[in-house]
């Protein structure tokens, strides 16, 4: 396969995300300008100019009208996807680590850093009027000091709960009615780098620095599977075609600080494909010359995109070999 290489960023990629239909691919990096691309040909639709710090986390609403970015410049911005204009700029006390649109698109959950005497928080705001957002959260939950700092956040189905991934490796499910903790999944031993839902929203995959990725049942936070590698896992994604191709793709590599002192041959910056059920690796794809920071299947399951520490986003479309490959039991 011939990947498309997107060179829109000046620094390492932090997160990439497809919209619901998969025609748009959003990318954010440690430079202050998130990009949006047409995934089919790699054409850049535009950049979102306004932040003044690294953009840690992005999310797009289900109907691809709104785009939210959480940044290290201690703001969260909501953008119009069509024009690239900033609709609102919400100032926080600390940098914003994780952002997530609710399933209905009416609310945004975000987590903030623990910094300068402020606690890490999980807040929910109402975004039904994107031009005139009330910056006071409709729900506010202190994460620290009772729990470790929350890094990533995801909504469960029907906006009933959110799940946060924490610095100490636990994931916590919070009830949206009461703001109280419902369940804790404590399996990982090091920080959670990324969380992604399966296409039907029933399963959750977490990627952790402890060199494993784990599959969870979202409703009960029961650990289902574990995918073991030999390096920190930065991101993991479940194939949307999970019935015919029960695959998981994982990206990682060694610590960013060690990258320059090791060759790419040893660093193993490949994307690794695992069988969802048998937890066995069956394929690899080379390409990046830095660790993969964010990886995601295309919503139609016929390709995937990965963003790396090298600042590039690579969009892959599988060739026939992928579909013809039969997993050997």
């Amino acid at each position: 396969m011939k990947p498309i290489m997107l060179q829109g960023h000046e620094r390492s990629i932090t997160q990439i995300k497809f919209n619901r239909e998969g025609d748009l691919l959003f990318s954010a990096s440690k430079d202050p300008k998130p990009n949006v691309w047409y995934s089919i040909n790699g054409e850049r639709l535009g950049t979102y100019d306004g932040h003044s710090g690294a953009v840690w986390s992005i999310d797009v609403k289900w109907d691809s009208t709104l785009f939210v970015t959480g940044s290290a410049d201690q703001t969260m911005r909501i953008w119009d996807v069509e024009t690239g204009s900033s609709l609102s700029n919400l100032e926080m006390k600390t940098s914003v680590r994780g952002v997530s649109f609710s399933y209905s698109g009416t609310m945004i959950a975000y987590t903030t850093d623990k910094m300068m005497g402020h606690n890490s928080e999980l807040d929910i705001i109402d975004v039904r009027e994107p031009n005139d957002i009330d910056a006071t959260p409709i729900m506010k939950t202190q994460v620290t000091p009772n729990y470790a700092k929350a890094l990533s956040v995801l909504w469960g189905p029907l906006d009933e709960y959110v799940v946060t991934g924490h610095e100490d490796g636990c994931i916590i499910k919070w009830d949206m009615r009461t703001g109280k903790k419902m369940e804790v999944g404590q399996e990982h031993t090091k920080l959670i780098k990324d969380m992604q839902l399966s296409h039907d929203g029933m399963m959750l995959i977490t990627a952790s620095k402890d060199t494993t990725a784990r599959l969870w049942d979202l409703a009960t936070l029961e650990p289902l599977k574990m995918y073991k590698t030999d390096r920190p896992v930065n991101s993991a994604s479940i194939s949307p075609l999970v019935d015919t191709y029960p695959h998981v793709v994982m990206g990682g590599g060694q610590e960013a600080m060690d990258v320059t002192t090791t060759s790419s041959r040893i660093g193993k910056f490949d994307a690794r494909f695992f069988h969802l059920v048998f937890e066995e690796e069956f394929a690899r794809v080379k390409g990046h010359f830095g660790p993969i920071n964010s990886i995601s299947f295309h919503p139609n399951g016929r390709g995937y995109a990965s963003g790396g520490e090298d600042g590039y986003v690579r969009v892959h479309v599988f060739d026939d070999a992928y579909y013809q490959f039969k997993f050997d039991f």
Partner: protein
Amino acid sequence: MPSADEVVKSSWADEVEEVEGGNLPPPVEKNDGNTKTITEYSLNEDGKKVKITSHYRIEKHRVARTIAKRKTWAKYGLSKNDKPGPNPATTITAEDVFMHFLSNKEEEQNEQEELKKKLMDAQKGQVKCRLCKEDHWTKQCPYKDKLEPLRSSLLGDEKVEEEPPQPGSGPPVDKAKMSGAGTQGKYVPPSMRDGGSKKGESMMSARGRDETATVRVTNLSENTREQDLQDLFRPFGDISRIFLAKDKNTGQSKGFAFINFKKREDAAKAIQVLNGYGYDHLILSVEWAKPSGTQ
């Protein structure tokens, strides 16, 4: 003192820029049906003109109305001035990459069976059953139960018909030798055995490895691992063993390795191609390994 009119003149650096832009023909865009060709000109590092022709295939896809509408949106931000279609400055087609499927268990098994078969073939002619004179060990003789009592009753204890010892043959011959010396059943210290008078064979050759198809690789980087060598040498042919010298404490490579190929031709090919090959910022030196006894 410099006068004012001198300042008006643009600096020499700007001048060069201007000339560059002026000499180059403007980019030409040709659109014919379902292909688009863009011809651009630029100067390379040596100051020579380079013509770059990019071909684009225009595809039509049938998509949902919302997606089609999004495709018509005007570009914004840094892409505001981009023309329709991918901008080569931000979007490039990368080299072909392949999905590397990890070895299948089935194949592995087949390979093992093949290897076994090869071994069996190699043993043919060397191994001879003392009972039925077929190509297998005496121990594995299908007629063992019937023939052995018969044989021992015929020959008695002492006079066992002896075959001339063959070089490289296995234990049955040794055993036969011992019985020929009339010491069957008794313990003989190793020094008193027949082998004791001979020079000991080294372990390496005893393992029966074909030393002739071994190459020595030196000037490897410290970070090399066996897997890397496997990736590097596998294309030349089947490899039976890779030995990478590693530091016992740190586990880092000591900078040299031995690769045993199954075939000598493959090893020769590898030497021809990889000797002097740049790998991990170092120039590899690949040569025939000296037989282990002579070093």
